[in-house]
């Protein structure tokens, strides 16, 4: 009946067994340097990906394409971001050319894959940009990435298939915390078990995993090729957990950082939920718990929380439907811009040990594969943060049909991720760089 509390109960039992403490925090340099990854002099790069499903309002979100560069007029949909105008760039003209479904704002947004790209399969996807970043930027932190989602609200929010924005190296959907409460516990649940007991528990976890793998091998010998391809996911899940256990072991004994915010209330939905999730993301970055975050935001519950009584899909077809629909769509844009502005405020005001701000080392990607309605051309793309050496403050109109993946490639390389190409990328976007 009260799902959030429920889930919390589950997480508690879960963490007692599996999730061990440990996060590098400002107050915990000592352990950070004890961790295997060396602490570089330069502050680490971070990347944040925010996806909002059902596109935006065509006429009031996109800056005039004729006003290129820094001197553009901020449209009303972006007005709440006015104080950050010189600190983000809008890119227009980017597309995922192989995406053809008008209801998939997030499935291929960060992957650029062709749904029909694999013969004999009804669905195909590839790794998402955030997971490429996680592979490289996530080595030294407690979590290589944190994949956040909005649970059941995602279904009506124009995201399309998937469990989050993130897809793993084999194109399988990834799942993660679905509420602020879950995210908070994943990051900050305090561990009270003595270290020796934790070590024993880790050993026991390993033997349980060995056991599971052995059982899977026994089965593997009896199965045919197709079935084994499926069973591979099970092996992969075991491997993923082992990787995490190794991480846990490295961080053994380091206490969890203070979250710096109270435990979220369950049952928040929409606007408040997104705001809180942003706060938790800031806390995750500030405590250096992870350096890569993705968040598939709710749209349907956002509307409800804004007292809009029109369902999200109908709202996205505001054209030709009467002013109340357009109004709902614009209200949604402003609310989302407000929330983003709040996130940018906090990135700027959170200090790093060297006196710089989180904003100086972070890249925020904010957008959707859907432009508006069912349109997929020129995906709404807002980039902020100084982490990837971007030229900020401009309205950048790129050549028609430039792959969205070119932007991802540019950001990844700018953040120090050695990657040759991504998805259907054809190269970096030079104008995006400072």
């Amino acid at each position, binding site marked *: *009946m*009260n799902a959030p*509390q429920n*889930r919390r*109960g*589950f997480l508690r*039992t*879960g963490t007692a067994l*599996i999730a061990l403490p440990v996060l590098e925090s400002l107050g915990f340099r000592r352990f950070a340097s004890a961790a295997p990854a060396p602490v570089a002099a330069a502050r680490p790069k971070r990347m944040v990906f925010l996806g909002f499903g059902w596109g935006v309002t065509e006429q009031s979100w996109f800056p005039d394409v004729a006003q290129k560069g820094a001197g553009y007029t901020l449209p009303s949909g972006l007005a709440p971001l006015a104080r950050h105008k010189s600190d983000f760039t809008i890119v227009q003209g980017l597309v995922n050319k192989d*995406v*053809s479904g*008008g209801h998939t704002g997030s499935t291929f947004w960060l992957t650029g894959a062709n749904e*029909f790209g694999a*013969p*004999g*399969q*009804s*669905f195909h996807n590839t790794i998402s940009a955030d997971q490429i970043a996680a592979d490289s930027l996530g080595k030294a932190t407690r979590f290589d990435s944190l994949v956040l989602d909005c649970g*059941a609200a*995602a*279904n009506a929010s124009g995201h399309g*298939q998937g*469990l989050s924005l993130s897809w793993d190296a084999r194109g399988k959907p*990834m*799942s993660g915390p679905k509420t602020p409460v879950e995210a908070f516990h994943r990051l900050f649940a305090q561990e009270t078990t003595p270290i020796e007991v934790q070590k024993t528990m880790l050993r026991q976890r390993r*033997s*349980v995993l060995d*056991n*599971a793998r052995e*059982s*899977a091998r*026994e*089965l593997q010998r*009896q199965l*045919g090729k*197709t*079935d*084994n*391809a*499926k*069973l591979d*996911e*099970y092996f*992969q*899940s075991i491997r*993923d957990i082992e990787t995490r256990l190794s991480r846990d072991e490295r961080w053994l004994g380091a206490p969890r950082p203070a979250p710096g915010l109270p435990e979220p209330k369950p049952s928040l939905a929409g606007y408040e939920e997104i705001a809180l999730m942003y706060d938790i993301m800031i806390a995750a970055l500030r405590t250096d718990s992870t350096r890569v975050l993705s968040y598939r935001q709710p749209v*349907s519950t956002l509307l409800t929380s804004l007292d809009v*009584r*029109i*369902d999200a*899909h109908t709202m996205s077809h505001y*054209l*030709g*439907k*009467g*002013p*109340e629909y357009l109004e709902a769509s614009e209200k949604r844009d402003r609310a989302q811009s407000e929330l983003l502005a709040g996130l940018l405020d906090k990135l700027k005001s959170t200090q790093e040990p060297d006196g710089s701000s989180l904003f100086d080392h972070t890249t925020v990607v904010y957008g959707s594969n859907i432009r508006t*309605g*069912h*349109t997929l051309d020129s995906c709404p793309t807002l980039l902020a943060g100084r982490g990837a050496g971007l030229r900020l403050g401009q309205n950048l109109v790129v050549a028609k049909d430039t792959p969205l993946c070119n932007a991802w490639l540019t950001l990844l390389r700018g953040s120090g991720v050695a990657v040759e190409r991504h998805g259907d990328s054809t190269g970096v976007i030079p104008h995006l760089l400072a």
Partner: protein
Amino acid sequence: MPTRVTLRLVSVNLLIFAVGVPAARAAAAPAGAMTERHRAFLASNCQGCHGPEKQKGKFRVDDLPLTMADLPAAERWQKILNALNSGEMPPEDEAQPAPEAKANFLDDLSHAMVGARKRLADQQGVIALRRLNRREYANTLRDLLGVHVDVSALPSDTGGPNFDTVGASLFVNGNQFEIYEALAQEALEEAFNASIVGSAPKKLRFEAEQAHPAFLKKNQESLEAIDRMNRWIKAVDDAAASPENATLVARLRKDAPADDDLRFHWHKIPGAPSPMNFGFSKETEVNPRIIYRHRDYVDFVRYDEYYLRLSALDRGAYLPVRSNTQPFGFGGTGIATEPRFPIPRDFPAGDYVVRICAGAAPGAPAERLFLDFGLKGSFVVGTGTPARSTHHVTGTLEAPEVIEIPFTLTRANVEQNHRQLFVRERGFLNLARSQQQFREAVQRNGHGPEVAIWIDWLEIERRPVAPETLSPGLRALDLPLDARVADVPPEKLRGALARFAQEAYRGIPAPDGLVDRLLRLYDSRRATGGTHRDALKQALATVLSSPRFLYRAEPEAGAARRPLDGLELATRLSYFLWGSPPDQTLRDLAAGGKLRQPEILAAQADRLLDHPGSAHFVRPFLGQWLTLDRVDLFQFNQTLYPKFDDAVKAAARQEVYETFSALLRDNGSLGELLSADHVVINALLADYYGIPGVSGDAFRKVALPAGSPRGGLLGMAAIMAMGSNGQHTNPVERGAWVLRKLLHEPPPPAPANVPELARLGAQLLTARERLQLHQQEPQCANCHRKIDPIGFGLENFDAVGQWRTTDTYQARDEAGKPLPNAKKTWTIDAAGVLHKGPAFRDYFELRAIIAAKQENFARGFASALIEYALGRPCGFSDEPLIATIVAQAGAKSLATREFVHALIRSPEFLSK
């Protein structure tokens, strides 16, 4: 290697077959191919720039293969489709194709595209290894251990384009293994506890009248306080009104013009008494507002007074009607809000039955005789907890009747201390409505709404847990489960683990290696200080998160196709029709080699369908096939549609399931889903549909009067409600749904990048005029000329499936305010012409046209059933199977069970 060769042969056969068989659609081209006629369209419209001479954008159309046999070919055609849909091509300054020709071309191309995608994705009958989906997993744990586990921590398996049984879409990722293991530990913990608590009976009856004495006392106190307030106010006002105080009062009024404010200065007015003389506290002398507060509750106290004068209060209590967010009855007594009944703390998690003995109050109107039942936490002050179920009150005050409700108290309920059973009148939560009700009633009778439902008593009783009903898992284990057990002999433990694993693996013996490993795991737990119970739980949780439990493995013997063995068949059948593992009967038949005998298999299918467990087939299959979750997508506007509340919404959805269940039970014709002379409803829906003479919660067949729009899916409130947005109807959604689900002519997926119609804003148009603009653009017309006429034929159903004859449109300004003189009301005209089809004058004729196409419906149903049962998308290679099933069912007038029988005796179902 041999496997690959076979597969190739299969696909060659398939191509020949697909070309040779008449496609479902009238188009001459085989699915996934275009024709020479289309090449002519390209030649005249595109080839000038994209042909042998010029290849603008490095793209040429003249050498395109007509059959989209591979991905590159499909991508080239997709590019053409995209360019035409977006209006990008032909360029504006070039000659444009005739709208009709363009629409036809787009129509054919988009269907060919769907066909090609489907063919290229065809799995050629191969079923990807199926993981238990979320609900099957919960059912399996329930059958094995007798406990209900909250599986919401697992990723959802629905929401994709396929059924949640399709192996290819059932992933395992990230930490999912750990979730399975943690859930298994939880389930085991609960099962162990339940077996230790044992079969102690638990039963408690609450007499509803027990709170009345306290309530009466409180009401008398409140009445008396109001009287004291009135007397003090009068005393002060009298003193203020006396002529000798006139000058003083005039001066005081300058700062305190209102009477209420003036009385703050009572001590300055000679002759005005202190409130303390009237029994009020010291602080009221400086702040009379504390006294005025009693005024806010006068209405409620009067209502309580009315309540307390009702008859039969010595034997029971009435359900009150809420008038305010605050519990009414000053200070609240419990009885005047919603009656709550705490389940005692020593009642363990498990299965119970709740009985409510209730009757109608004298003179209560029929539509108010429904009560909501539910469970909430004791600390919840508000009344916002949604009901679990809604029930019809069939008894009277003199002859109350017992409503019996199965009830499960979960471990989560226990942990969160959710132990308060509540009962309230339906509609209690609709604050706006109950406030209005209250206001109207006060005007009418001076006190408030008449009560409608009287409760005699409520009781909760634990279902008996006898040793012989011990869950199969624990029975197989046959071990003490107490933490204090010191040592279990290794042989005994080995036997127990082996038996448990075999039970968990649905009858397949556990490999020796597994039992050895489990024993080692157990020992290492014990060696590090774990109790017997902990160590056992760990070992068993390992079994319940191992792949043999989580996946329904069908080993491959080398040959591409082989017959399933008995157990595999039992498992397929049971998960198909029960969503849960095979029971002992199925397993015994499998072990005895009998299940593969056609008559035994058929008899078992009938047994499963006759069992209540078949609800675990009906609900998920029908719910996903007909996309019933759309009903929950919208918030239905409770001001416009107060009758369509949560209770009716749930009953409306239940109607779809119950109608199908009745068809299965009676083996009626599938065609009755298209048109029928009866409905399957309960009292609540009968009230909603305005059908008299139906009593009680049970759904049953009710004959319809002639001329009723009900009967069949189209007449169901749930189906029409999901073709709306909670406020207005959505004819496009309805039309597309009918094409997809009833006529089996699915329109292609909504194309991307079609320019939207922006010019309609505040124009006063009927819904039909508004949508007819779709048909001006060929990009829209190619689909909407098929969709829209059907949608408009259903316009007589409003957004919540009620019959109507008029509709209105109100234009609004930028701020959303209604514009004056900008409202249009029109009589609904449902007449239309199907694209390349017959004309119809109204909804009834449209329904008849659709009902006449029951063969199409049967084909769509068969392909959905194939996908659901086999756990793989239904592809072109399944056309012969579809044809066989429809032919066999057709020979028996499309008898619903015959579809299931025809499918389970097919080679596809019987072999790996």
